[in-house]
């Protein structure tokens, strides 16, 4: 039976969980009260408001048990691959092999907001010369050095070239600290010149044939490294199966997003949607469980839509959110300020699009990698944002700047310009640090002003 949707505190969730358990609800192996994560040190969870559905609880438990899964994978003798920066492509290859677990060390950037203060990770990064003028992903350096959040990977890959400067610099620092990194080149995506052979990419993009060929060759190097690590061939058949499985998860996510964004009342809060989308990147280190969790969330969302239930009023301002946030608590502010999520572009839309099945697998993966929004012009991102915003009926665009991220200095301007020109929607930029308590009033002011602007424009 569906309970009325609400955003509740962690303490309220634990009480609800106790009642559910007493009523006989079965949970996955990673299930349990959220409060246990707080006891493990994730004190930042106390600041959040959670979706009160069992499906959302599964989502959170799945996310918050990833570290345990990674260490368990190491203990069970699985090969651990740390894939950096490409956000969605290499894990598809890695999970095509038995006995291999892949994850993004980049995800450590959320540890400071989830754990007590910053868990010391940012201080470690400071001591290594990567201070607060760099992106919060510098927490990854601290996580590698502390060894407390994930096992030392057996293989580290990192896409490089058309990536952001600070991640490139941080990864280079990591190498200087003694890690071997397989760097693989990704070119700056551009449309084919006149007379130049081009190929279509997922997401409606296009690139020159030679760029796709370059990426295909680079991914072949990654493939060879994965084969060497696992001691087994990674065949085209394996890759096709891996692509099929990844596409299954991507399909669920696409439907989840479409259902949430198009609903009259938002059936899922912005925070849970962000966490759900992140599952596309490396499946939270368990591909099968990720599919189950997301499928459960989709079921819940469908039930809510059918019942006309959701969060906030039907007239909540429909906001398109651009860029992920270093502090998850900020996502809660959207609903608190009278808005609702109506479109997202968290810098990894290529991990949500289907990987082509009608191409040789390496060709398909190369085209997918090249469709990464970071790899091409910000104007490409802006065009997709506009297309989606139009499709979902967004009324405003919120661009979240990541403090210290080199691409954010000008990208927001470019995106806002395109949005203004093509859609005429109000746009606001906010900057979200890893722990945003103290700037929360300023963020609330901006979000509230955006919502007020939307309402005034309606009349």
């Amino acid at each position, binding site marked *: 039976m569906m309970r009325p949707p609400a955003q509740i505190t962690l303490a309220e969730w634990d009480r609800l969980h106790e009642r559910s358990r007493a009523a006989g609800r079965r949970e996955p192996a990673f299930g349990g009260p959220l409060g246990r994560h707080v006891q493990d040190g994730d004190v930042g969870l106390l600041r959040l408001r959670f979706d009160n559905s069992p499906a959302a609880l599964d989502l959170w438990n799945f996310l918050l048990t990833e570290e345990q899964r990674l260490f368990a994978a190491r203990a069970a003798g699985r090969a651990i691959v740390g894939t950096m920066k490409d956000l969605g492509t290499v894990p598809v290859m890695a999970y095509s092999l038995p006995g291999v677990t892949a994850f993004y060390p980049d995800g450590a950037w959320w540890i400071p907001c989830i754990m007590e203060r910053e868990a010391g990770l940012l201080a470690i990064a400071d001591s290594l010369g990567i201070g*607060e003028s760099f992106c919060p992903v510098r927490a990854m350096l601290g996580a590698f050095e502390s060894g407390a959040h994930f096992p030392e990977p057996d293989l580290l890959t990192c896409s490089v070239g058309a990536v952001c400067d600070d991640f490139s610099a941080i990864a280079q620092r990591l190498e200087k600290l003694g890690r071997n990194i397989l760097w693989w080149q990704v070119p700056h995506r551009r449309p084919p010149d006149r007379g130049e052979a081009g190929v279509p990419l997922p997401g409606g993009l296009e690139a020159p044939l030679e760029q796709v060929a370059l990426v295909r060759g680079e991914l072949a190097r990654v493939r060879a490294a994965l084969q060497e690590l696992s001691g087994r061939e990674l065949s085209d058949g394996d890759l096709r199966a891996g692509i099929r499985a990844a596409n299954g998860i991507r399909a669920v996510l696409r439907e989840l997003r479409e259902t949430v964004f198009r609903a009259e009342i938002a059936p899922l809060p912005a925070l849970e949607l962000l966490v759900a989308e992140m599952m596309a990147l490396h499946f939270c280190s368990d591909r099968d469980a990720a599919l189950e969790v997301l499928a459960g969330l989709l079921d819940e969302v469908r039930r809510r839509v059918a019942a006309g239930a959701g969060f906030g009023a039907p007239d909540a301002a429909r906001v398109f959110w651009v860029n992920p946030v270093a502090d998850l608590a900020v996502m809660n502010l959207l609903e608190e300020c009278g808005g609702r999520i109506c479109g997202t572009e968290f810098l990894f839309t290529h991990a949500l699009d289907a990987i082509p099945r009608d191409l040789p697998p390496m060709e398909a993966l190369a085209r997918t990698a090249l469709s990464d929004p970071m790899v091409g012009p910000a104007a490409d991102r802006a065009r997709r944002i506009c297309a989606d915003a139009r499709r979902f009926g967004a009324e405003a665009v919120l661009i979240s700047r990541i403090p210290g991220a080199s691409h954010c200095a000008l990208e927001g301007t470019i995106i806002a310009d395109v949005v203004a020109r093509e859609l005429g929607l109000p746009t606001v930029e906010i900057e979200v640090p890893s722990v945003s*308590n103290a700037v929360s009033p300023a963020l609330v002011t901006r979000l509230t002003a955006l919502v007020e602007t939307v309402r005034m424009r309606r009349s």
Partner: protein
Amino acid sequence: MFCIGVDAGSRAIKVLLIEVDSLAIVGRGVAGQGVAQAELASRLVDEVLERAGVALADVRRVVATGYGRDALDLAHTTVTEITCHARGVHHQLPGTRTVIDIGGQDSKVLRLEQGGAVRDFAVNDRCAAGTGRFLEVVASRLDADLGDLGRMAARARRPSAISSTCVVFAESEIVGLLAAHESVEDIVAGVQSAIAARIASMAGRRVVEPIVFTGGVALIPGMKEALESAMGRPLTVAGDPQMTGALGAALLAAS
């Protein structure tokens, strides 16, 4: 014969008079900075000399340091405050290997060789967030005295997280924290932690003990503890930390 060290800092001018042979301090003075730096410095030097009963003609050499050093025509030589602080600390505490100097508007971490010479240094001189100015802003905003900050921080239960790298925006953060009913004690502790964290970040992994803490901010209660916590190492506060730069300048004048 005597020598004089003048530290023309951003907030105050400090003058130290020493006897050349014994290196004993025979006079000292502090005055607020102003627009007419040369005149202010000159007047302060005259006052120090008069109190010490020393004639200007008996002063062999004057070395000036600090941001305003080049504006002082009474100085024979100018030397940077980096060199002077190192010299001053080494004189007081030979064997010091790291100096942390936090002034009103800048902060420095100096690494010294065994003999006291500067090996290398890092300076934060473009952002007030790691300086005494931040503490002044906080004290003013909380209606507190700088001298009370240590007591307040000691009563903190959970230091507030201050995220801004800019003192101007940090002031807005403090307003926000007060509105969110965070205690003033937690806020003060948070600010001190933020300053200490920035210093620790600047220091990186270059810190070698023993570490000496100097500069005007060393006089503010709570800051030593905050720095020790951020760096995970013990610190010694220099004697008369506000005058270390002037001391170093005077010693260099005498050498």
